[in-house]
């Protein structure tokens, strides 16, 4: 094996990594070996690999910096088959056999990256430089932009990618959701679990325990903390009322504790079982939420602080304890607080060599410091690292005595070499979820961090997420808070035991005086030199110089700062940078951090897969597709379909070698000369029942229905309250108190909803029941001269169907033995019958009619032919002749607007100033001078086609077809003052540069004006 794990310790008590099982993986083409439980980061560090990426703007070399989701630098690309996931964190990827990972944002390779020349010119790219230039010549931005876009962007996606993975969604309900499986979270969950309520506990990492996996040398109740973790987790996992989810990130906290989390189910496995999802999205409704999300260490800001080999102190400790990896040999620790001393101890115990500890505090005292001193490790108090040196890795640091008050070095600089620098700038509680819920944050001047105000009844933060860092205090807080919450919901959930426990288990954690000293920016002698290499946001390359420039230019609001310098806007959302940036901003403005404020955190806590969010709601499951019972028949006859809302309808039935228009013309011609059959099942159908049904319909239709005789049908027009046409259809009176209403296909749902709304909110005094029966009935509508003959041939009793069956009436009878409701109504202008049968018989009826109809030349026709047929008669289609801006008057349908009725929906609005204005757009017919020329639908008519743009437009063509019966192109249009323009010539300019089409404005009824054909 070429690459030995030079930095792996010999000992055998890693809390996470299992040295028994080795794992092979590749990084940038090289083969490496790690152990099960390693992250890509720990495994690479074990080989001494630090350099792992190039930075966003200056392409500076960057190394592994943290140990979890806070990692700003180690973004890599994982390749699996045709899929490549960019921008994943090496600190979170669990390695598996065959893992292939690549570094990003470098060309040609990591060690030598051409764009790193940006670094040399960094001086010319200060924050927001692009706002100040690239403006000349004015047309050139698109050119500049091309290069800027290429330089920007982090990872690359695979363009061949085709999603192979499954993503599941799952709803879950619980009384208590615990976010975070560290000391606080585990203790909270265990307390709650005893009461029998449903508890869900989720942790981002693949092992529960949080920082106890790292600080495992503490004792809890006289036992090693790690044992306490194991026992507690066992307890929880065995409890039937507890769901333990590791590898699960709670990324969004929303209204009323609707909490969303992403579970990584199989992506850490070498071969993923086909039946299991890659990830699972949990949508949880929790009665209460405990946020035990822990804290994240922040770095110190000084010149050269972004060099590979400089790492968070807590991260180094984690690599040692969890993975037994010591990422350096000559080590310096730089801190402003106690926590780093535990790292020093860990390094010492791991046999590492500590050059010295550099502590910004003048004379810090605590047990751990004494312990370290006893070990003979040098501690330089009141000192600071001023600059770090190195090319692709840290080689040495400049050190000087430093005064945090005056913020300047107060001694000569001394030089010290090293290959690992541990930095610790204090802890930031993870308040993201609290902030997502609009919870307020309080700045704590003693612990130097923002913590939640914990004022909500729905959720609460505990432990280090709440700014409580001492283990015993954490355990007590978790215990107390949890028992209080439970006692609050006890009644509601009949909880057995609810005595308030105050104290949790004892620990010997000795972080007594947690009081870091404030030092947001370590100043060198010459700020203008040092600040532009003192990095605040590593990933976005924003520096102390950038922040000060922003302040100089007046971007004082913390939001302006963030947006102008892009600090905190990278893929780590500023987990390590935000507070330092605010600190530096506050200092430059001579304000306190509290006065400066903080930006609100947005979901998600960590980047969340779009594939996961989409889940299975893609492809055919993106939206239900609704089919009629006759769909199978249409398909078998090779019909072409069109989508109408969620419905799919037969559009036309092309025969051997027929084009669209040929097929449609044939269907139209056949229907007029013989007979045609259309599947009208999708029409909305509503049963209107009750003593006030007539009155109700009177109020919702423009015309009168109260006086409709039983057994008779009537066409009705519905308006919205603004007087605009909303829907239309035929409604039939089945009994005194019983109507059968039909609506348009697209309008069905909206109409039912609208009518229900009126009944329930406006006219509660009306006794009317509405029931949708759209799908109860299959509808076959037969029209044409032969239609009655065909029906008779289907009727058992031998009688002339047209006898005692006048136009606009209905009959209950049997067709081919099928109980049917037949309506003698017509949308084609021919004698027609709309046959409704219980849906189960739909296909049977249809097939039978087609069978019997053969000898009568019965032709199945689709929606397109239907459109042509009704257009020949000048019948409107709501949604085609109307668009929410058209009144009945505009359609020339004054006859349907009752003058007698005291009231109907839309009546008053029709009387407004604009409604009867003569220049409104009104429905007219158009006949082209060239009978063969069909105007494209949607085209606009003008009087003078040669005018300049913007042209004076009269209006648009709403319907336009070739009429095979008239052997002439026909069209309907909505034109300004159309009614008074009958006879005028208009021109319709073409998009494709062809000559404008010339047409005459006519009456919109083109065929059988008298309507004789209705009666055969």
């Amino acid at each position, binding site marked *: 094996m070429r690459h030995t794990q030079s930095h792996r310790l010999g000992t055998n008590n890693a809390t996470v990594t299992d040295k028994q099982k080795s794992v092979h993986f590749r990084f940038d083409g090289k083969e490496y070996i790690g152990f099960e439980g390693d992250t890509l980061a720990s495994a690479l560090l074990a080989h001494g690999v630090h350099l792992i990426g190039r930075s966003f703007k200056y392409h500076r070399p960057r190394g592994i910096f943290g140990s979890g989701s806070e990692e700003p630098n180690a973004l890599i690309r994982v390749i699996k088959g045709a899929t490549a996931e960019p921008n994943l964190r090496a600190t979170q990827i669990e390695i598996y056999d065959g893992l292939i990972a690549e570094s990003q944002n470098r060309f040609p390779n990591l060690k030598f990256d051409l764009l790193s020349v940006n670094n040399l010119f960094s001086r010319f790219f200060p924050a927001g430089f692009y706002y100040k230039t690239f403006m*000349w010549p004015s047309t050139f931005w698109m050119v500049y932009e091309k290069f800027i876009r290429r330089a920007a962007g982090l990872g690359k996606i695979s363009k061949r990618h085709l999603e192979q993975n499954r993503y599941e969604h799952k709803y879950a309900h619980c009384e208590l959701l615990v976010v975070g499986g560290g000391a606080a979270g585990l203790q909270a969950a265990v307390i709650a679990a005893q009461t029998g309520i449903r508890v869900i506990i989720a942790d981002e990492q693949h092992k529960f325990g949080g920082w106890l996996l790292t600080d495992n040398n503490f004792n809890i109740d006289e036992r090693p903390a790690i044992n306490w973790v194991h026992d507690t987790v066992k307890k929880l996992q065995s409890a039937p009322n507890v769901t333990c989810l590791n590898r699960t990130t709670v990324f969004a906290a929303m209204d009323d504790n609707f909490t969303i989390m992403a579970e990584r189910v199989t992506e850490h496995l070498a071969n993923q079982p086909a039946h299991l999802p890659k990830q699972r999205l949990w949508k949880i409704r929790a009665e209460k939420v405990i946020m035990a999300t822990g804290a994240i260490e922040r770095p110190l800001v000084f010149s050269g602080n972004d060099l590979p080999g400089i790492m968070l102190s807590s991260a180094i400790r984690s690599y040692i304890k969890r993975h037994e990896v010591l990422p350096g040999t000559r080590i310096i620790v730089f801190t402003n607080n106690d926590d780093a001393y535990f790292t020093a101890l860990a390094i010492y115990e791991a046999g590492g060599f500590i050059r010295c500890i550099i502590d910004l505090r003048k004379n810090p005292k605590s047990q751990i410091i004494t312990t370290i001193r006893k070990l003979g490790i040098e501690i330089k108090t009141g000192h600071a690292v001023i600059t770090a040196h190195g090319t692709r890795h840290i080689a040495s640091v400049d050190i000087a005595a430093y005064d945090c008050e005056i913020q300047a070095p107060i001694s000569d600089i001394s030089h010290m070499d090293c290959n690992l620098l541990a930095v610790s700038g204090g802890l930031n509680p993870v308040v993201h979820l609290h902030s997502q819920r609009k919870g307020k944050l309080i700045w704590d001047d003693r612990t130097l961090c923002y913590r939640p105000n914990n004022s909500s009844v729905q959720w609460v933060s505990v432990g280090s997420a709440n700014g409580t860092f001492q283990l015993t205090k954490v355990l007590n807080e978790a215990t107390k808070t949890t028992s209080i919450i439970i006692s609050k919901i006890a009644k509601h959930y009949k909880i057995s035991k609810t005595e308030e426990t105050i104290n949790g288990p004892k620990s010997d954690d000795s972080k007594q005086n947690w009081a870091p000293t404030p030092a947001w920016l370590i100043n060198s002698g010459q700020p203008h030199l040092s600040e532009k290499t003192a990095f605040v946001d590593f990933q976005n390359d924003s520096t102390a110089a950038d922040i000060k420039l922003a302040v100089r230019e007046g971007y004082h609001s913390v939001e302006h700062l963030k947006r102008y310098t892009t600090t905190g806007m990278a893929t780590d959302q500023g987990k390590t940078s935000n507070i330092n940036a605010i600190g530096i901003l506050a200092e430059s403005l001579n304000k306190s951090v509290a006065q400066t404020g903080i930006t609100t955190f947005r979901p998600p806590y960590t980047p969340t897969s*779009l594939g996961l969010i989409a889940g299975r709601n893609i492809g055919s499951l993106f939206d239900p597709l609704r089919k009629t019972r006759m769909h199978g028949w249409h398909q078998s006859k090779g019909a072409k379909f069109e989508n109408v809302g969620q419905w799919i309808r037969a559009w036309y039935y092309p025969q051997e070698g027929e084009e669209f228009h040929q097929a449609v013309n044939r269907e139209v011609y056949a229907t007029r000369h013989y007979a045609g059959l259309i599947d009208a099942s999708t029409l909305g159908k509503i049963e209107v029942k009750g003593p006030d049904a007539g009155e109700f319909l009177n109020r919702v239709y423009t015309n009168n229905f109260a006086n409709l005789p039983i057994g008779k049908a009537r066409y009705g027009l519905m308006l919205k309250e603004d007087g605009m046409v909303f829907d239309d259809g035929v409604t039939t009176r089945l009994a005194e108190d019983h109507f059968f209403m039909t609506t348009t296909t697209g309008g069905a749902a909206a109409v039912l909803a609208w009518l229900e709304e009126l009944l329930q909110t406006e006219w509660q005094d009306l006794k009317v029941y509405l029931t949708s029966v759209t799908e109860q009935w299959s509808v076959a509508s037969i029209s044409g001269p032969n239609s009655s003959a065909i029906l008779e041939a289907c009727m058992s009793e031998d009688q002339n169907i047209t006898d005692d069956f006048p136009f606009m009436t209905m009959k209950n009878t049997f067709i081919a033995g099928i109980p049917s409701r037949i309506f003698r109504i017509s949308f084609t202008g021919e004698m027609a019958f709309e046959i409704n049968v219980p849906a189960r018989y739909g296909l049977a009826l249809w097939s039978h009619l087609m069978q019997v109809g053969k000898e009568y030349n019965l032709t199945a026709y689709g929606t397109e032919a239907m459109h042509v047929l009704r257009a020949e008669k000048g019948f409107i289609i709501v949604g085609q002749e109307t668009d929410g801006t058209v009144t009945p008057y505009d359609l020339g349908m004054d006859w349907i607007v009752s003058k007698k009725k005291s009231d109907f929906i839309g009546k008053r609005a029709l009387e407004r100033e*604009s409604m009867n204005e003569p220049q409104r757009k009104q429905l007219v017919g158009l006949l082209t001078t060239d009978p063969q020329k069909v105007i494209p639908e949607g085209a606009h008519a003008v009087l003078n086609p040669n005018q300049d743009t913007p042209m004076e437009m009269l209006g648009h063509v709403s319907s336009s077809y070739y009429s095979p019966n008239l052997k002439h192109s026909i069209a309907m249009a909505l034109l300004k003052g159309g009614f008074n323009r009958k006879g005028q010539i208009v021109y319709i300019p073409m998009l494709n540069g062809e000559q404008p089409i010339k047409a005459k404005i006519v009456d919109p009824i083109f065929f059988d004006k008298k309507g004789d054909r209705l009666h055969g």
Partner: protein
Amino acid sequence: MAKSDLDRGSKAFARRSKRYSIFSLAKHAGNYHQEWQQAWRHAEPKTTYDAVIIGGGGHGLATAYYLANIYGITNIAVIEKGWLGGGNTGRNTTIIRSNYMWDESAAIYEHALKLWEGLSQDLNFNVMFSQRGVLTLSHSEHELKEMSRRVHAIRLNGIDSDILSPAAIKKLVPMINIDPNIRYPVLGGFLQKRAGTARHDAVAWGYARAADDLGVDIIQNCEVTGLRRNGNKITGIETTKGDIKTRKVGCVVAGHSSVLADMANIRLPIASRPLQAIVSEPIKPVLDTVIMSNAVHMYISQSDKGEMVLGAGVDKYNSYAQTGSWPVPEHMVAAAVDLFPFLSQLRMLRQWGGIVDTCPDASPIISKTEIKGLYFNCGWGTGGFKATPGSGHVFADLIANDRPNTIALPYSLKRFETGYLIDEHGAAGVAH
């Protein structure tokens, strides 16, 4: 009228020393950028102004800039309760286009688009107006007809627009899925080449800097608490930084219009709703055009930084919370992944919401009110950003002359009485 005034260009930055340029950048680099001046003064309110603009977003700052630059009214204050551009200016998805169906809409959005085309130079601030084209998709026969109607109207209005076949769309947008068998297949689309995106923050900052240079006072962290009137005339405003006398008040406070209207006891036909957007992590360029689809309620573009920017329609209930409801982003992502399968490799980086003021006819209000000297510019719904320069200019014109010009006229409050609405619902769908 308007345009010719505008053609005279900007009077801002007469003093070269303050101008931005590649040379100034180099010069300042020489002394480590220590000498840059403030982009705008952090002014404290004076007791009296000729006009006060309430709202320091893009529209408000633009109004102030044009008042100063074209109408010579420089004794103006812009009052902002938070930070400049902190409302929808800094939260929108930066789409700019003028391909609207109704003449009235085409007029104002095209007026705006023409201004966008020279804005960086006018303001001497690079707003990164990127004319990468906006493509609107059609997924059904019905939508194809609607598209035809729109494109015909747009073209006769003298605005560029082309209908594209699925094949042509695939050529323009290689990553799109045009499989005819998906639930909402791509049957066609129309492209406005001059449309595109811009850097939203830069628009606020650019206008602020230019207006400031012309003498406009920009006052942040100052909340308006009341409007002072004498009978039917505006006499001033009350703020958290004291009272201010003025005869003209222009309200441009998207997301809070009704709140201000209440102070004046005026009724608006407005509902404030959340509008959500998300961005993915930044990746190398894969999408050079803005894509919109009304049928699946989703639009998407790739920012210069590399993030995929997604948006959808408004949420269904009134809210001032600047957060939205989860089903909306969940649906928009599903729609996006369906049209662009590569997206499932990416991850959502940020989700946020803005507050949009929606009108019954999905068109804005640029209007005088029954109170003399009080003007409202609001109700832009989801479409405000693209109109910023045009809106600012016609509103400045209205305030300066106390009468609407031909572009602003149709957008009067009166239309809700008379019924002369400009109904962009049918036409616009997702109206971004």
